[in-house]
């Protein structure tokens, strides 16, 4: 609190130094949603009632097994060790198991019932079970891609071709940011302890063909929390502010000669940068949260854990950040899925519960959409006797908050968990549903790129999964 007040003073001094008001005016222009910037309207935006004001997207990178998490398959347990029925698998796209014998591999952990509707999930996730009445599982999710990199691209951009905007960029483009001194789209990553940390490319939070200001900004666990955030050594905040004020003053004088509208924007950007230099360290300092909260999430300040990132996600949400995406890695269990998921459960179970309850306590649950999803699922067939291969025909994702019904499981995979068969959904449907809750019509929300109306939800047609909405 103290730092914030002090910073406000610095900021006032800074603005006063420059010339009262203009800085904040330019800043206001900068922060306005792009739907009104430059008089161009973004089509499809806020044409629907807005349930969600923001999204927290928990990416479980590596491809979590639905069979050891949220999709119970007793039949698969029965068939353990037997050949996979060929009728299911013939001619299908599989990754590392291509051309190898396909054997059923039963779920490695027991499942248990939770909540008012007795939904069965893996017993490794009791904390998530405790808030299950706020969660909607989609057990019939499918995706197009089967390797990590293209699958992340597809989940984030709705396309497997590089160069498309990530959903966080789309949404910030459409709705703008409500954060005064933070970017609208923030990304956090955390490593798992199992050593299966697949690489994640920065393209996953790229703004693609949208203007660069909508790109995701990564909050880093080590070093400067935002790249180049800290002053150079030997430069105080006061001096930094003073230098920025001089730069602004000189830029403004130059503008009087050349009348270049970019100058006003640049002045605003310098102010924004200067504000971020104070607001971001304050934001990432979770010491301020108190022991009770830290214990609830199960994290320590500075431990870089998924739990700490969940807590940061809530802090970002409070500050008006529009799209917060967490990557938690190490879900790529080609081998040792039993121990692997056990480890992952320890890392995420409490944190997910804490995030949901925390949002509820702060009255933000109804306006925050939480999504939990990997880039693909895993095979019911064994790989190497202890693991599972990549799989795109069935996976489970879950949603929570912002007008999504809790305590339900939507759709289903077949009895072996191989393919989604009931109320089959696609990544485009998931995107459409998210946009719908944000008040955006997915089929009208587009941007001209290479002469085409490019959409997050692609050209194939997507449908809002309306059955899961309250």
């Amino acid at each position, binding site marked *: 609190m103290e730092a914030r007040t002090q910073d406000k003073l610095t900021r006032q001094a800074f603005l006063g130094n420059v010339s009262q008001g203009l800085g904040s005016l330019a800043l206001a222009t900068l922060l306005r949603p792009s739907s009104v910037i430059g008089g161009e309207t973004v089509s499809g935006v806020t044409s629907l009632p807005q349930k969600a004001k923001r999204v927290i997207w928990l990416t479980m990178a590596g491809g979590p097994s639905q069979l050891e998490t949220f999709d119970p398959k007793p039949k698969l347990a029965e068939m353990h060790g037997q050949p996979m029925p060929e009728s299911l698998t013939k001619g299908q796209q599989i*990754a590392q198991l291509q051309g190898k014998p396909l054997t059923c591999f039963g779920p490695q952990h027991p499942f248990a019932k939770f909540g008012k509707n007795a939904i069965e999930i893996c017993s490794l996730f009791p904390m998530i079970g405790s808030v299950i009445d706020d969660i909607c599982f989609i057990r019939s999710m499918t995706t197009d891609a089967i390797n990590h990199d293209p699958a992340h691209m597809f989940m984030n951009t709705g396309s497997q071709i590089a160069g498309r905007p990530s959903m966080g960029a789309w949404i910030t483009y459409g709705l703008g940011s409500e954060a005064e001194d933070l970017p609208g789209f923030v990304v956090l990553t955390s490593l798992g302890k199992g050593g299966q940390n697949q690489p994640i*490319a920065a393209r996953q939070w790229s703004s693609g063909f949208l203007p660069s200001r909508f790109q995701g900004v990564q909050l880093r666990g080590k070093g400067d929390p935002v790249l180049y955030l800290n002053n*150079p050594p030997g430069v105080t905040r006061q001096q930094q502010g003073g230098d920025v004020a001089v730069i602004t003053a000189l830029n403004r004088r130059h503008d009087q000669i050349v009348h270049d509208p970019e100058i006003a924007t640049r002045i605003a950007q310098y102010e924004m940068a200067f504000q971020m230099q104070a607001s971001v360290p304050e934001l990432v300092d979770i010491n301020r949260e108190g022991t009770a909260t830290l214990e609830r999430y199960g994290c320590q300040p500075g431990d870089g854990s998924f739990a700490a990132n969940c807590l940061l996600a809530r802090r970002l949400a409070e500050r008006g950040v529009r799209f917060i995406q967490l990557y938690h890695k190490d879900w790529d269990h080609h081998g040792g899925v039993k121990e692997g998921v056990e480890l992952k459960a320890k890392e995420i179970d409490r944190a997910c519960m804490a995030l949901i309850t925390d949002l509820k306590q702060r009255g933000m649950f109804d306006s925050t959409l939480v999504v939990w999803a990997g880039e693909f699922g895993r095979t019911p067939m064994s790989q190497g006797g202890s693991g599972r291969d990549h799989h795109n025909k069935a996976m489970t994702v879950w949603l929570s908050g912002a007008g999504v019904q809790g305590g339900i499981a939507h759709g289903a995979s077949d009895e072996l968990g191989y393919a989604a068969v009931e109320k089959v959904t696609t990544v485009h449907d998931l995107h459409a549903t998210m946009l719908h809750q944000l008040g955006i019509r997915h089929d009208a929300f587009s941007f001209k790129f290479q002469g085409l109306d490019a959409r997050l939800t692609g050209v194939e047609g997507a449908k809002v999964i309306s059955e899961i909405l309250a």
Partner: protein
Amino acid sequence: MIQTYAVVAAVLILPGFSLAAERIEFNRDVRPILSNNCFVCHGPDKNNRQAELRLDIRHDALTKQAFVPGDSQQSELIVRIHSEQADQQMPPPDSNKQLTVREREILKLWIEQGAEYQAHWSYEKPIKATIPVGQNGVDVLVRKQLDERGLQPSSSTDRRTLIRRLYADLLGLPPNPREVTQFTDDPDPTAYARLVERTLESPHYGERMAIHWLDVVRFADTIGYHSDNPRNVWPYRDWVIQAFNENKRFDRFTLEQIAGDLLPDANQQTRVGSAFNRLLLSTEEGGAQAKDYEQRMLTDRVRAIGTAWLGQTTGCCQCHDHKFDPFTMRDFYSLGAFFADIKEPILGRREDGMMVLKVEDEKKRVEIVSRLAQLQSQFDQPRPDLVESQYQWERAAIDAYKTNQSWKVIRPVDATTQKRNINLSVSAESIVEAGIDAKRNVRQQNDGTDVYSITFKNIDQGVTGFRIESLKGKGAGIGLSAANSFVLSEINLSRSDDSQIRIRSASATFEQSSFPASTTIDQIADRPDNGWSVLGGTGADQGLYLELAEPIGSPVASLTFILHFSAGENQEIANLRFSSTTLPSPIRAPRAAIPTKKVFGYLQVPVDGRSPDQIKELEVAFKQVAPDLNELREQISRVEKEKADFDLGAPKCLVSVSDSNKRTVRILPRGNWMDESGEIVKPALPHFLLLPTPEERELTRLDLAQWLVSRDNPLTARTVMNRLWKQLFGIGLSKVLDDLGAQGEPPVNAALLDWLACEFMDSGWDMKHMVRTIVNSATYQQSSVASAAQIAADPQNRHVARQSPFRLDAELVRDNALAISGLLVRQIGGPSVKPYQPEGYWENLNFPQRTYPNDTGQSQYRRGLYTWWQRSFMHPSLLAFDAPNREECCAERNRSNIPQQALVLLNDPTYVEAARVFAARVLVDCSGDDTARIKWAWQQALQRAPTDDEIRTIDAVLKQRLAEYRSLPSAANEILRVGYAASPPGLDSAQHAAWTHVARILLNLHETVTRS
């Protein structure tokens, strides 16, 4: 069906609608409306076509009675677009499309005027306007349009701005104050034209021009997908720079890139150009499917040709016919089939590529090769003088072979290495075969040393010795190193409980001087210069004989040979065979190595009865071990190593190599690579353009390249000139640089784009000629300061009644700061470099994990275009200024203005260091008072004098910082320690630190990073 239709009178009297008097032009006025609203369902894509109606072809539209030319009231199209009934209305309500009043009016007038079609503008050959002799075509055609619109061109800008503009556009570097003064003071009316010529001759011209081409062809140092590992392509970047500097004809530039390996005069340089075909994304991800990536690579290449040369979007044709342009799926896959001959792994690591040598290096290599040949021929000389010594060897070899009967080959149960730099496997013949791990090598994780652990079960009681044979396998010699040699540093024999079996003596069939066998049991395992080596004897099998201190007492259940190879450069044994013996002590190596079975057979033939072949073979075998030739053999090995080292260190580049075994290309229904039902296609050019007469033979990449730059192709010259226009004016004549198709924008000045395209081709595809023509125009030299009236009349400056100011491109922001500070190293070309980058930025890369070692020395201060281009984690400082990650071809860079740019310029050590060094220059090079120094600094950074106001502002901040640092000297020392560059001795720290702030302010100014 036809309903009468009444014009709503109000429409016609709306302000700004004086259309009726105008002639409607199909391409300008009508096509955009139809393309945007109707072609999705009534256009080229037959699979999506509704009611079998297509509106993109007049004949078809008429057949379906879509309209009646000359009679809008009887035209179904007009009825439909005015209908308010949901089932009649066009576009249908669920399409989210709606025509504006103006658009409806245009369609109506068009039909009334006869509903004439035009072929799409960019598919028609460009027509060259006639320009009066002595006039600049650019000016004539720009003025013509300005006149038509009642606009006035702006006056010429001042000379200081002009030279800064020209340098930024053509060199990407600021002029120094001296160059500016020279130009501004030059009274000669040809001063500017001469400046242009000098600029075009600068070697930095090629660097500047290369930047955008490298975007267009998606040049990068890494493979892109997943692990995003490095690959060798930087010589291609230098080839592009050189091509621009030499002013290589653009048609030739094209041929070399697409088919540099197929040209009749193909050479090293044209092959480097053909690296273009290898610049796409590839993967090393385990579990990736070849067919999947085969399709990705094909489509990647087609999109590249589309973007770089044709200015066409083709990506959608991967799955369906284009919805707006006549490009079909067949065109798409047929275009892809041109590249089916390119030899490459679909999955996994790329090969090292072709060696790319400069003339002097080529000479050096020729010298090494000839030296080697000379030694070899010396070695091959008949040596009658060695007859006696050969006779002795023969007897010894027979002995060795016979005693060999007392040795029993033992078979390992396990063979591994500690560092995994070397992979071991055991053959059916019980030979342990070693190979260098290619991945670790490429990732530079191989330190050239390793430790073999080779385990045997059940060693019998009574064994007195072991033998380790080093055999010539398929390789050139018996070791893995470049000289085919090895150095075995130490041997331990270890039981499973780690207890050791002691060795009393070690002897060998051959020993290099100073590398005797005895060093393998001297307890020194880790010294690079201590071990048993065989240089000079690498051409024959060799053996190491170990006598145990005591015979094996009780059978050993498990025995592991631990062999240390610590010399580096992968001096490890290539093929090992182990034997044991129960011979009594002493166990010593025979004087000769054990001959092969074949040689032993020949040896047993009496001398007189040997055939010439047998005599020859025996001579060859003997020469490999003859003591008199030791020195010569060692020399040969050394030169072989020299050659191998040279080859290893030589720059390499992935290039195109044509494989006669071509991949089969099918049309993939809906782009699905698992669906093999589609038709097989051969290379073919897009069907809708003017094509050369079909030939009997199958077309090649060379045909494709030739067609791209033929006069019949209406697209290439326009595409290239449109991009050049953007470089010099900030926005293309057709705004959408990568789409000259129906969904792009018809050029704002079609006559000008056509004239530029024709002039380009007429000049012999002469790029410098075109640059010269444009920058010499009065249009280019106009002031960029816009009046309110100009902004109102043409806010985006499409008609260029003025110049436009815009921010420098990412690389140039860096170059500019380094140049001003004096840090810039102006070397052209070379391997990519690694400027400072925040620690941990690569933490999300994996397979392998990577650190980013900042370059030190001169490499730290190279121009931005030489920055290591890591696709998945593009250098963040360049990324902030919109450098594309080059995963896809990028014709158009964003030009954003975001807070990260401020953070970079304020805090990135690159810019802090530049400010510090700039400040030192101010203090050292200018000896005046503060005001004089401010003026001097202003000249360096902005090449103008500061205003009094600016001096006052800067002076105030300077004095304040000075006071602050005087009171806190430690802070001054902190900022002065940023970056590797040394500060000149003797500077006052507080003063230097305070001036660093001033320099930093200058480097951050909008004016500094803007070309105006």
